[in-house]
C-alpha cells in the first residue's frame, strides 16, 4: 500500500515537472511578498524592483508574485507552489522565509532561490541584503541637528540585529552632534500594522520626541508626525506625500538593479549562489532628497553620504562602547567587522533603554 502510494506520488510529481518544463518558453521568475504590494513600504519597494525587472527584461521573462504570505507554516507551501508553477528563479523577500526557502531549495536542486536579509545559503540559494545602517547614520546626524528637544523617537519592529544595528548607528551619529541626545524606543513587534505604528508615534511624541524614525513599513508614523507638526524619516520608500513638511529624508530600498543583475545571470547560465550585502556604493539602497532642513544640515548630510559611499566614513568605527560601559572587541581592524554588525545584539552607550530579551 505504502509502495503504491509512493509510486503514485512520484508519478504525479514527474508528470507535473514535465508539463511545467515544456510550457516554459520564457524564464519564469517568482516573488514571495510579506505584505500587500500596496503597503507603500517594504513589499511595495520589492514590487517596484520587480516592475523594473519586467521593464528591462519583459520579453525574456515572466514574473509571478504571491503577496501577504505569513512567515510561518504557510511560507514553505507558497514557495513550493511557485516552483511547481515552473518558476526557475525565486526571490523570497523577508527574513522569516529563511528556513522554508532552504527546505524547498534542498528539495528542488535545479531551481535557484534568492533570500532577502537572511544568513543561510546553499548551492542553489543566495542571500541579499543592504547595509541600511549607513543610511541610519546619516539620519542620526540630521536628527540631532534638527531636534529642539534633544529627544528622538524610534519605532522598532523586532529587536533583531538589523534593527538594533540601525538604532546604534543612529545614536552614534547623533552623539557626534549632541553628546546628550536621548532616544525613546517603542517596539511595535510587527513589520506592518498602521494602527500600531501610529499609536507608537503618538506615544513617542507625547514623551517629548520631536523627530520620529521608524523601522516599520507603513507611512502611518509619518502622517502622525505631520499632524503634530513634528519631523520624521520615511522608511523603505518615498513617503514625502504623507508629510510634505515633515519628511527629512527616507532610506529607499532600490532592488531593481540587483534583480536585473541576477535574472541576467540566470538567463546567461552564470547564476551562482552568493552572499550580497551592498551599501550606498553598490546602490542597494538610496537616500531620498534631503528636505525640510536648512542648507547647512543638508550639506552635512550630503557630505556624510559621499564619505560613506567613498568608504571614508564607517558608522561603526572603533572604539565602540556598549551600554554596559565595556569597549566592544574590534574584529574588523578600524571598524567592527560584518559579522559583528550582522549579529549585533547590544545597545551602544547613551541609549537609556533595555534591549528586549537581554
Amino acid at each position, binding site marked *: 500500500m505504502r509502495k503504491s502510494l509512493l509510486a503514485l506520488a512520484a508519478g504525479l*510529481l514527474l508528470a507535473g515537472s514535465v508539463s511545467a518544463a515544456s510550457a516554459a518558453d520564457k524564464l519564469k521568475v517568482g516573488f514571495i511578498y510579506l505584505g500587500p504590494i500596496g503597503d507603500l513600504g517594504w513589499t511595495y519597494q520589492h514590487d517596484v524592483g520587480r516592475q523594473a525587472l519586467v521593464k528591462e527584461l519583459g520579453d525574456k521573462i515572466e514574473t*509571478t508574485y504571491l503577496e501577504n504570505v505569513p512567515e510561518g507554516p504557510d511560507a514553505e507551501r*507558497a514557495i*513550493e*507552489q*511557485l516552483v511547481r508553477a515552473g518558476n526557475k528563479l525565486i526571490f523570497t523577500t523577508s527574513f*522569516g522565509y529563511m*528556513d522554508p526557502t532552504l527546505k524547498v531549495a534542498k528539495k528542488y536542486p535545479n531551481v535557484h532561490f534568492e533570500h532577502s536579509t537572511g*544568513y543561510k545559503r546553499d548551492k542553489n540559494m543566495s542571500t541579499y541584503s543592504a547595509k541600511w545602517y549607513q543610511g541610519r547614520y546619516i539620519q542620526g546626524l540630521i536628527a540631532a541637528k534638527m531636534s529642539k528637544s534633544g529627544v528622538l523617537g524610534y519605532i522598532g519592529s523586532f529587536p533583531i540585529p538589523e534593527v538594533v544595528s540601525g538604532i546604534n548607528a543612529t545614536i552614534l551619529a547623533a552623539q557626534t552632534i549632541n553628546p546628550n541626545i536621548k532616544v525613546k524606543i517603542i517596539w511595535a513587534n510587527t513589520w506592518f500594522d498602521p494602527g500600531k505604528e501610529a499609536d507608537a508615534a503618538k506615544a513617542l511624541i507625547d514623551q517629548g520626541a520631536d523627530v520620529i524614525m521608524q523601522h516599520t513599513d507603513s507611512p502611518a508614523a509619518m502622517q502622525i508626525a505631520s499632524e503634530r507638526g513634528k519631523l520624521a524619516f520615511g522608511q523603505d520608500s518615498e513617503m514625502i506625500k504623507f508629510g510634505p513638511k515633515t519628511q527629512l529624508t527616507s532610506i529607499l530600498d532600490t532592488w531593481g538593479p540587483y534583480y536585473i543583475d541576477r535574472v541576467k545571470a540566470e538567463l546567461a547560465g552564470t547564476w551562482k549562489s552568493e552572499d550580497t550585502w551592498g551599501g550606498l556604493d553598490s546602490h542597494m539602497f538610496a537616500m531620498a532628497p534631503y528636505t525640510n532642513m536648512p542648507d547647512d544640515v543638508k550639506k552635512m548630510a550630503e557630505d556624510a553620504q559621499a564619505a560613506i559611499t567613498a568608504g571614508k566614513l564607517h558608522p561603526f568605527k572603533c572604539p565602540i562602547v556598549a551600554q554596559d560601559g565595556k569597549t566592544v572587541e574590534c574584529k574588523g581592524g578600524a571598524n567592527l567587522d560584518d559579522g559583528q554588525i550582522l*549579529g549585533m545584539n547590544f545597545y551602544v552607550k547613551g541609549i537609556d533603554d533595555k534591549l528586549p530579551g537581554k
Partner: protein
Amino acid sequence: MQLVLEKRAERSNTIALVSPLIAIGLTIVTMTILFAILGKNPLLALHAYFVAPLTDSYSLQEIAVKATPLVMIAIGLSLCYLANAWNIGAEGQFLIGAVAGSWIAVKTQGTDAGAWVLPAMLVLAAAAGALYALIPAICKVKFGASEILTSLMLVYVADLFLDYLVRGPWRDPHGFNFPTTAEFDPVATVPLLIEGGRLHLGSIIALLVVAAAAILLGRTIKGFEIRVVGAAPRAARFGGFNANQLIILTFAVSGALAGLAGIIEVAGPVGHLQPGISPGYGFTAIIVAFLGRLNPLGILIAGLFLALTFIGGEQAQIAMKIPLDVTKVFQGILLFYVLACDSLILYRFKLVFPNRQVARGTG
C-alpha cells in the same frame, strides 16, 4: 408588498441539508460576476480555485496539512460551544501547547535522547493546552468571569510568552540572534507519511480526533449531557447534569486539542519554534466549527473546504494573477452566504401584502 422572514414552526431538515449547496451555488454566481468584471475568465478562475487543487497529489497533501490544525482545534471548540461554553482563546492554547512541547525538544537538542521524545512532547503539549484553557474555565465557574473575554485575553499572554522565549532563553545560539530556536532533532519531529511530501502523522491524529468526537457525541452519556446542557439548560438542571462541571471538561478537552495541534504544527511543517507559528489557526477554527455546524464530520469537511480555498487562492494568484484580495472577498462571500442560508433552516421567506391587512400603525 413586503418580503419578511417568518419563524418556522420547526427546523427544516431539508434546508439544513441543501443550504450549504445553495450557499456554494450563490457564491459561484457572485464570483462569476466578479471575475467577469475583473476581466478574468470565470470558468478558468473557478477551475483554479476548486478543481485544480484536487487534481494532483501535491495539492491534496497541502490541503490536508493546512486543514489538520484547523480541524483538531475546531473539534475541541465544537464541544465547548455545544455545551454553551465560549472558548475564544484556542489560539493561545495552541501557542502554549507549542511552547510546552518545544521545551522537551529544546532541552534534548543534541543529546542522544531516544524515540520517547516526540510522544512526550505531544503529551506535554496537550496537558499544557488543557491547563491553560482551565484558567478561563475556572474563573467562569468560581467567579462568574466572562470566559469569552478571559480566554481571548490569554491569547496575547501566550503570544508574548512565546516571543520572550525565542528572543531570550531558547534562542538558537548559532542563529545570529534572530528570534527562533534551532531546528528540532529528528527524534523531536513529526514523521512524514509520504517521502518527499509534506503530509505528516498529524493528519492521521486529526482523523482519530474526529472519530473520537463523533463517538463521544453520538454514543456516550457524556456527549448527550454536553448537548442537553447547551440546548436546554433548564432541562439539563432537572436531569441533574452539572453545567459547571461540563464547562471545565469541555474547556480542558478543547485546550488539550489546541495544544496538541500547536506542537504538531511546530514539530511538523515548521520544524522549530518561532514567533508567528500560527496564521490565526485558533480564530479560523471558530469559523470552521460553525461552518461544520458543530458536528464532527461537518467540521472535517469544513476544514478541508476552507483549506481548499487557501490553496486554490494561491494557485489562482499564480496561474491567473488574481490578487489575494479577491481570494479574501471570495472567502468572505462564502461565509456570508452560508450564514444567510442557514437562517432559512429556522425561518422562511414570506410575502406580505399590507393592503390586505388591517393597518398596524407602522404599515
